[in-house]
C-alpha cells in the first residue's frame, strides 16, 4: 500500500492535446504533475498550419486582403487591416479620413464581439454554462451589427487597400447607435454577473498569476499584459486609423478591485472594461465621422498597377482584441509580394502559459489556458528565411524548436 502511495506522488506526465475538449483550439501540452499540482509545462503549437502566406506570395495584394480575412474567424478586421496598412505604407497610399473612421468603428465592434465571445468561453471553462449562454446571446447584437455593416457575419471583406469597400449610411448609423445603447445598458449587469459571482471569484482570483516582470520578459501583449499591469496598447502608443483623434488609454485593472494582480480575474476585468471603452470609441467616431471618399482609388485597375510598381518593406501593427497583431510585407515591383509574414497576437502570449500554469492544479488548466484568449489558428505559421533561401519547417522541427525554447526559458 505504502509503495503504491509513494509511486503516486512521483512526478508523472499528463499529455493534453493536440485536440482536446478542454482546450478551445489545437495545441499539444505536456504537464509534469506531482499529485494534482502542475510542476512543469511544455507545449507544442503548430497543429493548424494552412500555408496561407505561401498562397499570398502567389497573389496580388488585392487578392491577399481577402485571404487575410480568413486567417482568423474572430479577428477579420484585424488581419486585413494590418496587412492593408503594411501595403499602404509601401505604396505610399493615403487612406481617406472617412475610411479611417469606418475602419475604427468596425475594429471596435469586433473587439466587443471578441471579448464577449471570450467571456462566454471563460464561463464555459469554469463549468458555468448558464453564464456562457447569456454572454453569447448578448454577443449576437454586435454580430448582427457587423453583419449589417459589412454584409456577412464572418469574413467581412470590408477592408480594401486604401480604404474600405462599404460606406456607413445614416440608417446604419442609427442601428449602430441603438446597439451601443443596448450594450451600455448591459455593462453594469455583465460586470455584476462576472465579477460579483462567488464561483468566478473562487476559481479566478489568485489563479494563473503572471507577474508584471514575467509579462514584460515574455513580451506579452494585449489584455494579458495589461492585466499584469503593463501600460501598453498599440492604439495608445502608436495610434493608427482614427485613434490619433480619439481619446484612448490603455485599460488596467482599477484600484477598486485591488489594482493589477495578473491573475485570471484581472484578465476578466480588463476585457469587460474594454467593452465599455470600445462603446465610447465608437460613439466618438460616429460623433465626428468626416464626410468624403472611402477609397483612395476606386478604380481597381489603377490600384492594381500602382501596387504592382510598389517597392519596399512595410509593417502594419494594430491592437487586436488579443493584443498587438503585426503583418510584415515586402514588395519588389512585382504582382505578388516577395515576402509576407503574419505575427498574430497570441504568438506573443503563448509563452506566458508557463509561469501561469506552474503550481496550479490540473483542474485549473482549462480556464488558465483560455484566460489569455489563445487563437492558435492565427498563430500557427512558420516559414524561415535564411541567406535569402526559405525553407518550411515541418511539425517535428517545430516541436523540437518549441521544446528547446521552452527549455531555454526555464533554465
Amino acid at each position, binding site marked *: 500500500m505504502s509503495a503504491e502511495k509513494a509511486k503516486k506522488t512521483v512526478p508523472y506526465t499528463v499529455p493534453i492535446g493536440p485536440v482536446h475538449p478542454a482546450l478551445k483550439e489545437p495545441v499539444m501540452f505536456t504537464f509534469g504533475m506531482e499529485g494534482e499540482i502542475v510542476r512543469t509545462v511544455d507545449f507544442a503549437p503548430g497543429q493548424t498550419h494552412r500555408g496561407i502566406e505561401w498562397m499570398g506570395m502567389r*497573389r*496580388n495584394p*488585392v*487578392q*491577399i*486582403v*481577402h*485571404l487575410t*480575412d*480568413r486567417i482568423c474567424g474572430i479577428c477579420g478586421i484585424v488581419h486585413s487591416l494590418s496587412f492593408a496598412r503594411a501595403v499602404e505604407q509601401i505604396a505610399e497610399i493615403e487612406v481617406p479620413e472617412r475610411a479611417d473612421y469606418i475602419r475604427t468603428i468596425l475594429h471596435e465592434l469586433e473587439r466587443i464581439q471578441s471579448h464577449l465571445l471570450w467571456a462566454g468561453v471563460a464561463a464555459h471553462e469554469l463549468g458555468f454554462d*448558464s*453564464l456562457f449562454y*447569456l454572454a453569447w*446571446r448578448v454577443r*449576437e447584437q454586435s454580430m*448582427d451589427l457587423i*453583419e*449589417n*455593416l*459589412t*454584409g*456577412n457575419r464572418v*469574413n467581412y*471583406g470590408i477592408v480594401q487597400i486604401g480604404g474600405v*469597400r*462599404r460606406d456607413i449610411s445614416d440608417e446604419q448609423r442609427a442601428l449602430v447607435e441603438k446597439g451601443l445603447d443596448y450594450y451600455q445598458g448591459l455593462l453594469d*449587469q455583465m460586470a*455584476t*454577473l462576472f465579477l*460579483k*459571482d*462567488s*464561483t468566478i*471569484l473562487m476559481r479566478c482570483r489568485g489563479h494563473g498569476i503572471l507577474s508584471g516582470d514575467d509579462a514584460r520578459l515574455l513580451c506579452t501583449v494585449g489584455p494579458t499584459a495589461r492585466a499584469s499591469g503593463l501600460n501598453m496598447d498599440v492604439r495608445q502608443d502608436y495610434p493608427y486609423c482614427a485613434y490619433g483623434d480619439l481619446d484612448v488609454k490603455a485599460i488596467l485593472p482599477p484600484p477598486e478591485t485591488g489594482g493589477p494582480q495578473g491573475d485570471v480575474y484581472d484578465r476578466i476585468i480588463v476585457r469587460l472594461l474594454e467593452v465599455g471603452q470600445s462603446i465610447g470609441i465608437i460613439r466618438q467616431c460616429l460623433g465626428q465621422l468626416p464626410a468624403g471618399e472611402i477609397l483612395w482609388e476606386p478604380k*481597381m*485597375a489603377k490600384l*492594381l498597377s500602382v501596387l504592382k510598381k510598389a517597392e519596399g518593406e512595410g509593417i502594419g501593427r494594430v491592437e487586436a482584441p488579443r493584443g498587438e497583431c503585426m503583418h510584415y510585407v515586402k514588395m519588389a515591383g512585382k504582382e505578388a509580394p516577395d515576402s509576407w509574414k503574419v505575427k498574430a497576437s497570441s504568438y506573443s502570449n503563448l509563452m506566458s502559459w508557463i509561469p501561469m500554469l506552474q503550481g496550479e492544479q490540473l483542474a485549473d488548466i482549462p480556464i488558465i489556458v483560455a484566460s489569455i484568449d489563445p487563437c492558435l489558428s492565427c498563430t500557427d505559421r512558420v516559414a524561415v528565411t535564411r541567406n535569402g533561401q526559405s525553407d518550411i519547417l515541418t511539425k517535428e522541427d517545430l516541436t523540437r524548436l518549441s521544446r528547446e525554447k521552452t527549455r531555454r526559458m526555464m533554465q
Partner: protein
Amino acid sequence: MAGLPLLPELVRQLFSRPATNAFPSRHLPPSITGFLAKVARGEATIHPPIPTPPKFRGKIVYDREACIGCSLCLRVCPAHAIEFIPETKRVRIYVTQCIFCSQCNDVCPKNALHMSHEFLLATEDRYAESQIVE
C-alpha cells in the same frame, strides 16, 4: 459582496421566449416532404426564414450579355474561382471555389457580376449545375 447574481436572471428566463431563431416547424415532422407538401397546400405554416442582411454576399450571378470578356475579374479573384473560356470570350465561375468576397463585382467594368442573397448551396457534386455559373 460575492453571491450568485445570475440566479434572478435565470428565473426570469424561465418565463421568456427563446432567444434563438425558430426552426421552420415547431417539432420535427414525421415526413419532411409530406410536411412541405402540406405547407404548399396551405394546410400548415412554417416559421419564415430570417432575412439576410442588406449587403449580404451569397451565390454569384453573372450577366453573360453584359460581359465583354476583359478578364479583369480573373485578376482579382483570390480563390481562382473564375475561368476564362477563350472560344466564347466569356467567363465561368465555380461556386464551390468562390469565397464570396465580391471583389470581382467591384472590378467588373460592365457590372456583369453580382452577389445574390442565395446561401443554401451545399451539394455533393462540385460540378453540379447549381455550382457552375456561366
